[in-house]
């Protein structure tokens, strides 16, 4: 009886192994379930397979909801090919990508607030074209702006299992640098960020262009 169960398990492992090995893209548990017969615990099988490959030259890694075989990271320097990126990312695109990754879901206005500059044409659409960024939905605020987030292909490209693996994420959170808005006691936007909060008045016109102190009350 036990022997039989072991055989079924072995066969199921071989099937998901074959499916995953054959594919270049991550596969979800749901993609593989139909091949396994009823009652198969795909997640458990995946964990078992991952353990079997942990020490090999090829590893089974998780990418968001998907699973995929990739060459082991520590062999990277050996396998490194002299390939060049077809289009290296501009600094603007890189910054935008990391802001979206760390602040998602982020609206365009929020991205611009962090960078302090308007997002040029060809930045967001380039990142979407590369398949790293996608429109996620809309923010429930006036104007219902579209929100952006990263894709599974982003995780795969940068070798991250989940967004929680983003480098330095915890430190940045701890330092309060990832709050979408400024810390509560610091919510005074700079002029170029747009709106003022309702409890504020705009600067007087005379403030602009006059570098001298304008305080008359004191």
């Amino acid at each position: 009886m036990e022997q039989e169960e072991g055989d079924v398990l072995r066969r199921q492992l071989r099937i998901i192994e074959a499916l995953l090995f054959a594919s270049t893209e991550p596969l979800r548990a749901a993609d593989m379930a139909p091949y396994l017969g009823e009652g198969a615990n795909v997640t458990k099988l995946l964990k078992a397979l991952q353990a079997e490959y942990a020490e090999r030259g090829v590893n089974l890694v998780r990418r968001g909801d998907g699973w995929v075989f990739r060459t082991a990271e520590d062999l990277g320097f050996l396998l490194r090919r002299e390939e060049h990126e077809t289009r290296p990312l501009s600094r603007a695109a890189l910054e935008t990508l990391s802001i979206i990754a760390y602040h998602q879901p982020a609206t365009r206005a929020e991205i611009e607030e962090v960078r302090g500059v308007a997002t040029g044409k060809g930045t967001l659409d380039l990142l979407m074209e590369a398949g790293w960024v996608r429109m996620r939905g809309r923010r429930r605020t006036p104007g219902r702006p579209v929100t952006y987030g990263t894709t599974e292909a982003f995780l795969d490209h940068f070798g991250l299992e989940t967004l929680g693996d983003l480098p330095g994420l915890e430190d940045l959170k701890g330092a309060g640098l990832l709050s979408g808005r400024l810390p509560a006691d610091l919510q005074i936007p700079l002029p170029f960020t747009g709106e003022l909060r309702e409890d504020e008045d705009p600067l007087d016109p005379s403030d602009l262009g006059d570098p001298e102190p304008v305080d008359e009350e004191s």
Partner: protein
Amino acid sequence: MTSAQTDWFDTPAPPPADEVLHVDVDGYEGPLDLLLDLARRQKVDLSGISILALAEQYLAFIEKVRERRIEVAADYLVMAAWLAYLKSRLMVPQAASDDEPSGEMLAAMLQFRLKRLEAMREAANRLMNRPRLGFQVYARGMPEPIEIARSAIWEASLYDLLKAYSSQRERGVVAEYAPKLRTVWSLQDARDILLRLIGDSVEWVPLDRILAEYLAKPSERATVRASTFASSLELVRQGEVEIRQGETFGPLLMRRRRKDTP
């Protein structure tokens, strides 16, 4: 109020004497980027930076840029105005009745924004230094055709869809494109205006000063310069005016030619 004894008033870091700032804003991606770069030059942790000194450096930088008549985008000027305001808030003790945000708060906020931008920049670096797919990590080189049950036979992403929609809507627009009408000075107009402005002056006067009132409008600047310059060459040929330029790219000087000279 204790504004006089805060970090922001700590001795401003001496401006790095050996480093000459490039007087050009083209390399910067907006005023925040420029500020961060200035802060970096202070070579201290952003937490310990003197915002007052930073504001002064920024204002000095923008002033220098404008002296050289390099056009500065409005963003930079708005930031300059805000920093001037911030400076005033930092230097004048706050009245108790004052409802406006204190200079310290404004400075702390600017510092927060600089830190956040720097953090994102570092994050981007760390991302790019990870073992990336196709660079240090590889996918199966020879995938085998395994049919994974998919709901659709056709593949298209939301991005494809939106791009298709946008580009055809734009195509429709291009068909209705009407060229923007621009003011152009004819050579005859330019000649008349130039002669009127020079009058009988026999002093050397820079062309830009002669044309000052017309050069104020950015939209007309190019045509005013081009047309008057072309006309002035014709006027020289006709013996009406004289032109001089001291050095390459130096100002063009102009005066009425004295009639009695041969």
